[in-house]
C-alpha cells in the first residue's frame, strides 16, 4: 500500500489538483478558469485511481471533466460577451464566509474521523472482484430507494428543462 510509487503519485496528483484549483481562482478569463478546473478534476480522478477506486475515477472523468465542463462551456457561451471575465463579484464576503465554513466542516470531519480503523485489512476480507460489481450490488440492493429517488429527480429535471426551453409555436418542427 505505502509503496513509494503511490506516495509519489499522491503528491504529484495533489499538486496538480491544488494548483488547478488555485489557478481557477486566479484566472481572470472564465474559459482559462474552466481549463484549470478540468485539470483539477483530472487530478482528482488520478487520486481516486491511487485509492483503487477505478469506477469512481472513471466516473469522475466522465461526469466532471467530460459533461460538467461542457455544461459550463454552454453556460459561458450563452452568457453575454461582456461578463465573460472573472470579474469582482458582489458576493465576495458571503462566498468567503461560505468557503471558510466549508473548509471548517471538512477539516472537522477529517480530524474527527477514526481513520485508523479502516487502515488495516478490513477491506481485504470480503475483497470484491471489482469495485463496479460491489457498487452495482449496493446501488440495486441496499441503496435502491435513494437510487430510484435520484433517478426520478433527474428525470423530472430533464422534463423541466425541456418544458422551459420549448418554444411556443404552432407550426411543427421541420424534420
Amino acid at each position, binding site marked *: 500500500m505505502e*509503496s*513509494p*510509487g503511490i506516495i509519489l503519485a499522491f503528491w504529484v496528483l495533489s499538486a496538480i489538483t491544488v494548483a488547478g484549483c488555485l489557478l481557477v481562482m486566479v484566472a481572470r*478569463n472564465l*474559459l*482559462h478558469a474552466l*481549463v484549470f478546473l*478540468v485539470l483539477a478534476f483530472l487530478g482528482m480522478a488520478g487520486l481516486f485511481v491511487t485509492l483503487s477506486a*477505478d*469506477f469512481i475515477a*472513471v*466516473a469522475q*472523468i*466522465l461526469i466532471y*471533466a*467530460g*459533461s460538467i*465542463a*461542457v455544461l459550463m*462551456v*454552454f453556460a459561458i*457561451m450563452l452568457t453575454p460577451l461582456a461578463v465573460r471575465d472573472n470579474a469582482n463579484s458582489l458576493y465576495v464576503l458571503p462566498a468567503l464566509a461560505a468557503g471558510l465554513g466549508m473548509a471548517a466542516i471538512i477539516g472537522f470531519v477529517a480530524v474527527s474521523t477514526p481513520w485508523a480503523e479502516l487502515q488495516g485489512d478490513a477491506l481485504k476480507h470480503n475483497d470484491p*472482484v*471489482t*469495485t*463496479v460489481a460491489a457498487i452495482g450490488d449496493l446501488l440495486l440492493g441496499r441503496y435502491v430507494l435513494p437510487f430510484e429517488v435520484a433517478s426520478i429527480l433527474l428525470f423530472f429535471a430533464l422534463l423541466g428543462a425541456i418544458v422551459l426551453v420549448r418554444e411556443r409555436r404552432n407550426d411543427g418542427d*421541420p*424534420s
Partner: protein
Amino acid sequence: MSRAALPPATPMARQILDHRSLLQRARTLPGEARVALALLGIMTVAALAAVGYLVIAGTLDGRWYDIRDLGNGTSHLVYWMERQGWHPAIPYLTTGLLGGLGILSLVGGWLVIGSWVERRLLAKFQIRQGPNRNGPFGLLQPIADALKLIQKEALIPIGADRLLYYLPPVLIFIPAMLGWAPVPWAARMSYVDMNVGVVYAIAISSLGVLAVFLAGWSSNNHYALLGAMRTVAMMVSYEIPISMTLLSVVVLTGSLQLSQIVAWQQQYHVWLIIVLPLAAFTFLFASTAEINRTPNDIGEAESEIVAGFHTEYSGMKAGLFLAVELGNAILVGAMMATFFLGGYTLFGLETWIPGYLILATKIGAVYFVFVWLRGTLPRFRLDQLMGFAWKFLIPLAIVQLLVVAVEALVIEQSGLPGVATVSGAILVNALLTFFGVRAWANAIGYRPEAGASTPILTTAVGGLRAAARLQAVP
C-alpha cells in the same frame, strides 16, 4: 501515325509510357535471382511447416518466444525481474514503458501510412490516381506532408487567446492516445485490462469535446466558433446513443471488461454484430459523428464552414488535428472490432495467426468503411443529425437495451444450451432491428423514397399557365 513513334511530351507521359507492371518486371529477372527466390519460397514454406508443427504439438504455448501473444514475452520479463529480487517498481515501470511505446508506435505508424491509405483509397473511389509521386506508390507522401507542415510558420490569428489557442492540438491528442489503453490485442496483451474498460472508453472519448470547443473559441474566427458549437452539440448528443449501445453490449456479455467481451464472443462463436445489429449500426454511425467523419462531418463541413473548428490552425497544429482525426478513426475501428467484430479472435484461427494481426485487419476493415463512406455519401444537416440522434437512435437504443436485458437473463440463467439461447437472441434482435426500425420510421413520418421524383418531359412552351397545365396532369 502511331503514338509510340513520337517522343513523350512531358516527363509524366514518359513515366506512364515506361511503366511496367510487377509481372512484367518479374519476367525479366535473371536466372540466378529466380533460383534464389525459389529457394527463399521453399525455406518459407518449411519454416511455416515447422511453426505449424510446434503449434499443433502445443510446445509453443506460453513460451516467451510465442509471438502469437506478446503478453507472454512481457510476463516472462516480469517474472525474470521478480526472480532477480529487484524493487517491484522496476518491472511495473518497464512494462508500462514498453506498452506505451507499443501504442505510440502503433498510432504513429498508422499516422505515417494512414493518410496515404485514405488518399489512395479515395482516389480509387473517385477514378483518379491519388498520391503516386513520392517514393514507391507515393508511400512517402505523408512524410513529405509532415515535413511541410513542420516547416510552416506558426501563425496565430489576431485577437486569438494565446493559451487556449496553443492548448487544443495537444489536448485533443491525449484522449486519442489514452483510448488505446483497454484494447485487448490478444488474450494477455492489453495495456491495462481494466475492469471498467467500457466506461473508461466513454469517459476518455468525452474529453475531446473540450479541446474542440477551445480550438474553435480561441481562434477568434466565426467559422471556427460555428464549427466548434456544431461539433460540441453533436458530440454531446451522440455520446448518449453510444453509451446506450455499449450498455447493451455490457448487459449481454455481463462485463465492463473489454477482454471479457471478446471472451464472450469467443465462447459463443458469434460476433456481437450478428447478435446486436442495431447496436452495431448505432455505434458505427454515432462514432462517425464523434470523430467528425462523413456523413456526419458537419463540424468541419468544408462547403459550409471551411474547416470548422480548426480553420485558423496552420502548420503542425493543423497537422495534429488531422493526425488525431486519423488516430480516432482507427481507435473507433479498434473499439468496433472489439465490441462487435470479435476482437482479436477469428473463430479459432487466433491459435495460428497472432491476435494483434487479426485485430489490425479488422481495424483496417472498419477504416475502409469510413473511407468508403467519405467517398460516397453527402453530408447531413445539423438539425437532421440531431433529430436522428434524439428521435431515432436513442429510443431504439433504449428498446434494444430492455430486450437485451431479458435475453441476457435467459442466456445466463435458463440453463438451456448456449447455441439455443444465443440463436434465439439473434433472431429476436434481427426481428427487432428490421421491424423496429421500420415501425419507428413510419411513426415519426420518415419516408425518403417518397421524395424522389423525375422531371416532367414536355414539348410545350409557355409560362405560368403552361406550368399549371403541366402540373395538373398526374
